[in-house]
């Protein structure tokens, strides 16, 4: 049985606190030497906004000691890595060799295992897809089935990518890296008057852009001007690396981001973007804007809530005015509002498909929860899909309504983990 200790965990968004247990095996012998003694879940960096790697009474198996590079095929750009390796670990190796992972979420301390379990997306899902699209195989361990390798396309592979860690412990993976023309990028900024204009520009640019998304500042229920931000990788020989990374430190802090300061915060951020317009910067700075701001999430005081939702293109013009009205009715002002285009196919529980992804962050307070509950109804009515690994209060009913392929996952999970020994606060909330 794993050597473990009692542990208090907090989700990165600061809204969920659980009392579980933590083990940190440091050798394969210890990782694979487990008797079933209750629910288990793998834990990477623990940076998921929601409580995906923890649960009350759940044994979280920390993977930080399994962070080694196992192989690299420079000709084909294939890197094999243990699941506890962070994106920073992988990039520090790949960047000097002129390669990059095509899909990366917003912080370099997220682990490869976490990227697989949440099937994360990057800064241009239309062109790059999601993390699974660049994954060739994964090694999965389960106490009853042992260690098994699953190639891309197999049902177990599909269930494990975006499977929230519920099919077993992802031990290692083979990833397809992409050659990089350079390690610098130019940031272009296009002012937009609102969501419809941003939507049109993003649709036009997404098929070819290296990075493209929009940022908006809600000034009223019908006004959300902002910028389309586009990053273009420049051919260069500059040997730029990732640089130092500040670990994110979720938890309570001084509520410097609050109702009074949000307009100031957004105005300041808009000015910061304007100042960076046309600048050439290391690519890593554009990929990981929070890499040096480990304190950022503490500025919310009591945490934040994020709702990320994929809206069909033809419903977008109807969707955002409804959202604006709900924001006004509930008296909530978003801190971050952003759009990104998706152009893939939805698989199992993954957050993918064809549409426009809206992300809004709000301060964690009762009115925000009632707002998001009302938004769940709008999402279900309009055929939008929320990202369950971003939203700490999304309920099982809305999740099931929005996940028509859920049965595919449940069927495969019944094969891989018939006793449902892998559980988390997230899986319990979603009744998985």
């Amino acid at each position, binding site marked *: 049985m794993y050597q473990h200790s009692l542990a208090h965990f907090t989700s990165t968004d600061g809204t969920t606190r659980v009392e579980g247990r933590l083990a940190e095996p440091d050798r394969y012998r*210890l990782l694979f030497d487990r008797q079933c003694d209750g629910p288990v879940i793998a834990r990477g960096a623990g940076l998921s906004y929601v409580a995906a790697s923890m649960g009350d009474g759940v044994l979280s198996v920390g993977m930080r000691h399994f962070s080694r590079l196992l192989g690299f095929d420079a000709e084909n750009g294939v890197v094999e890595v243990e699941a506890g390796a962070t994106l920073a670990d992988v990039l520090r190796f790949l960047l000097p060799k002129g390669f990059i992972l095509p899909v990366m979420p917003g912080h370099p301390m997220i682990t490869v295992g976490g990227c697989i379990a949440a099937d994360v997306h990057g800064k241009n899902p239309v062109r790059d897809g999601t993390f699974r699209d660049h994954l060739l195989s994964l090694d999965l361990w389960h106490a009853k089935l042992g260690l098994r390798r699953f190639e891309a396309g197999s049902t177990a592979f599909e269930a494990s990518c975006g499977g929230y860690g519920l099919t077993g412990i992802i031990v290692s993976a083979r990833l397809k890296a992409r050659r990089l023309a350079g390690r610098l990028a130019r940031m272009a900024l296009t002012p937009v008057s609102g969501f419809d204009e941003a939507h049109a520009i993003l649709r036009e640019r997404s098929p070819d852009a290296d990075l493209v998304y929009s940022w908006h500042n809600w000034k009223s229920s019908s006004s959300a001007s902002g910028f389309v931000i586009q990053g273009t990788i420049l051919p260069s020989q500059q040997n730029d690396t990732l640089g130092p990374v500040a670990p994110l430190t979720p938890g309570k802090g001084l509520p410097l981001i609050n109702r009074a300061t949000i307009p100031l915060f957004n105005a300041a951020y808009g000015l910061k973007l304007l100042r960076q317009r046309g600048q050439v910067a290391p690519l890593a700075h554009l990929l990981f804007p929070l890499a040096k701001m480990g304190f950022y999430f503490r500025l919310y005081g009591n945490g934040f809530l994020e709702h990320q939702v994929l809206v069909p293109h033809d419903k977008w013009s109807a969707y955002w005015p409804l959202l604006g009205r709900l924001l006004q009715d509930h008296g909530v002002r978003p801190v971050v509002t952003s759009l990104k285009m998706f152009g893939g196919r939805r698989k199992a529980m993954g957050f993918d498909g064809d549409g426009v992804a809206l992300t809004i962050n709000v301060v964690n307070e009762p009115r925000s929860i009632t707002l998001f509950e009302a938004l769940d109804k709008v999402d279900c009515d309009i055929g939008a899909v929320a990202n369950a690994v971003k939203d700490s209060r999304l309920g099982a009913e809305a999740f099931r309504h929005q996940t028509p392929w859920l049965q595919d996952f449940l069927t495969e999970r019944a094969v891989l983990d018939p006793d449902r020994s892998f559980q988390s606060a997230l899986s319990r909330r979603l009744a998985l």
Partner: protein
Amino acid sequence: MKAVIIGATAGVGRALATQLASQRAELVLIARDARDLDAMAADFGLRFEATIHVLAADVANPDAEKLQRFVRESLNKIDALFVIAGMTDPADRGTLPDQAMKLVASANFIGPARAVNALLPLCGPRSHIVLAGSVASIRPRGGNTVYGAAKTALEHYGMAIRHAFTDGLGSVCCYRFGYIRTAMTFGQKLPLPAATPEQVADVIIRRLGQSGVVYYPAWWRLVAICLRCVPWFVFKRLRF
């Protein structure tokens, strides 16, 4: 540098291996866990372009001849030999079953000493030997009867080797390590602050060439003095 690390896959041994590999040392890594050894060799080869040789062997019961042959064929000579392996048993409170007692004694003294003995012929006047002892040697106590005895024996052996090869070895150092955050201490409530394996590895490398018995962290020397001064009628009542 050509170095051998015994007990290389976890804790201080792994941290040492990582730091030495990052300095492009040529390493022989020895531990029980073949899969971890292979992973480390691949990782160090890719990240640091270091030359790594691995040997899966039970440190508690090493095949001395095979060990010597492997290291001779891999490195020919040894600049630094680090013997970091060790283990504890939570039941080591005076009533260990025979097999468990044998294992604790072997993993902490007999095996490491046999490994040093086997590799001494590959060491020269500029070679350094570092042994991982423990603050358990400060004063015998019931909380780790066999472990404390074995670590004390290893320390005694190391210092005897130092004396025997005064001119034949560069240095022999036995560290009395305080608490370290490793799998051995994971989840335990420790009465005093613990060092990280990386801190310990850094100190070992920086002080390579130092001889004798060394406390790390250094303030443990003060703890040792205090502990030795506690009169027996008080000490016998302490339960730790």
